[in-house]
């Protein structure tokens, strides 16, 4: 077996260190080693977006990042989206719009939508559909997800 590598990162605001084999994905380490099971494995090949995390502020598919590549990186997972005990407006709006059914896609959608709203606080419906094209949902038909993101954008605008 290949020697394990020591990796030091910041995850959800806290220093996180782990040992990994070079072949292991960041998603594997998050879920199996660090027990952050919010990020989901849908396809394990970059198509579904269920494993989306922010790496140095950018949305990436954690199934297509090697854990060794996370050395020195700042990572936000779905577990880091709520502000302490308060749900993030995106989470609140997904909940109140029933923007999910089975929920497998939801963490990835919320992390990607957070990245979208951070960059573009007033996205059009087209912007939302285009920027979230890397997230697949087998249940909702997307309409409710788009509306939840629109509502969250409005809620966030009210807050500022």
């Amino acid at each position, binding site marked *: 077996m290949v020697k394990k590598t020591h990796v030091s990162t910041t995850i959800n605001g806290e220093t996180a260190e782990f040992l990994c084999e070079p072949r292991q994905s960041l998603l594997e380490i998050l879920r199996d080693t660090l027990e952050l099971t919010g990020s989901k494995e849908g396809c394990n*090949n*970059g198509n579904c977006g269920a494993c989306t995390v922010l*790496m140095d502020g*950018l949305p990436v598919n954690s199934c*297509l990042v090697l854990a060794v590549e996370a050395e020195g990186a700042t990572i936000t997972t779905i577990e880091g989206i709520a502000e302490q005990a308060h749900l993030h407006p995106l989470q609140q709006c997904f909940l109140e719009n029933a923007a999910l059914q089975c929920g497998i896609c939801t963490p990835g959608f919320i992390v*990607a939508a957070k990245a979208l709203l951070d960059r573009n606080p007033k996205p059009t419906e087209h912007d939302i559909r285009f920027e979230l*094209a*890397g997230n697949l949902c087998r249940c909702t038909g997307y309409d409710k997800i788009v509306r939840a993101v629109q509502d969250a954008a409005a809620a966030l605008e009210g807050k500022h």
Partner: protein
Amino acid sequence: MKDIEYAAARSVDEAVGLLAARGDKARILAGGTDILVQLREGLRDADLIVDVKKIPELVGLSHDAKRGLRLGASTPCYRIYRDAKICAAYPALADAARIIGGWQIQSRASIGGNLCNSSPAADSIPALIAHDARCVIAGPSGRRTVPVAEFCTAPGRNVLARGELLVTLEFPPVGDGEGARYLRFIPRNEMDIAVVGAGVWVKLNAAKDTIAAARIGLAAVAPTPLPATEVGAWLAGKPATAATFAEAGDRARRLAKPISDMRSPAEYRLHIVGVLVTRALAGAVDRARGIVIGHSPNGQEH
């Protein structure tokens, strides 16, 4: 994925040394959006992954109106389309970078990776051909330059020899009256591999009513990305009108040699390549005239 070693090279020389020593058993890792999937699915085999993203020369863009654009091979796509100057000067490249996968893919995927993966359907390659980009390649015996139009040799194959890697892509400077467009045809709105792709660059005369020069690259209609050199040459001196664009589309159809596969029967590809070349020419000419057009990936504005 099977056990594998990982090395992050700090310089081009270090990467060349690792690749030369390990040959077929070493693979370069840029954004990983092709290679990690291929290793996991057993489509490629390697004992060593050489991460090249920590080599300064491979990541970043430097643009100068006089010298042109130098794009580090492993620069992620989002850095291209988020750069207003690059979008203005090399719009077909930006069109392609904006539609390679979704945002999560674009945060990592590079143009160098898209080119070196050498798929006949790769979205950036027709745009690179249209912009007349050249590959700067480093290897054990130094550096050489190869036009993108001559880089791919067969599906998944290219001119890179043992120990070689792509360092940068160099684009000529852009003058007045130039415009470019890349269009891709897919059944979905986003996130799909091209049924057909067409990249077009034009230069208009001073009155902006005649095409002075043109270059066209096509995706998914031949075993490699296809430079439609004859069509570009035919366009020189023709009026920049809808009739010209349509005839260029017909001529591109005659060059295309598509196959039938799960994405499309060959007949459909043959039809669509004409449609896309016609639309991409119209878009490139609009841009050459300074008209702002939308980002619709297939050229149908909504």
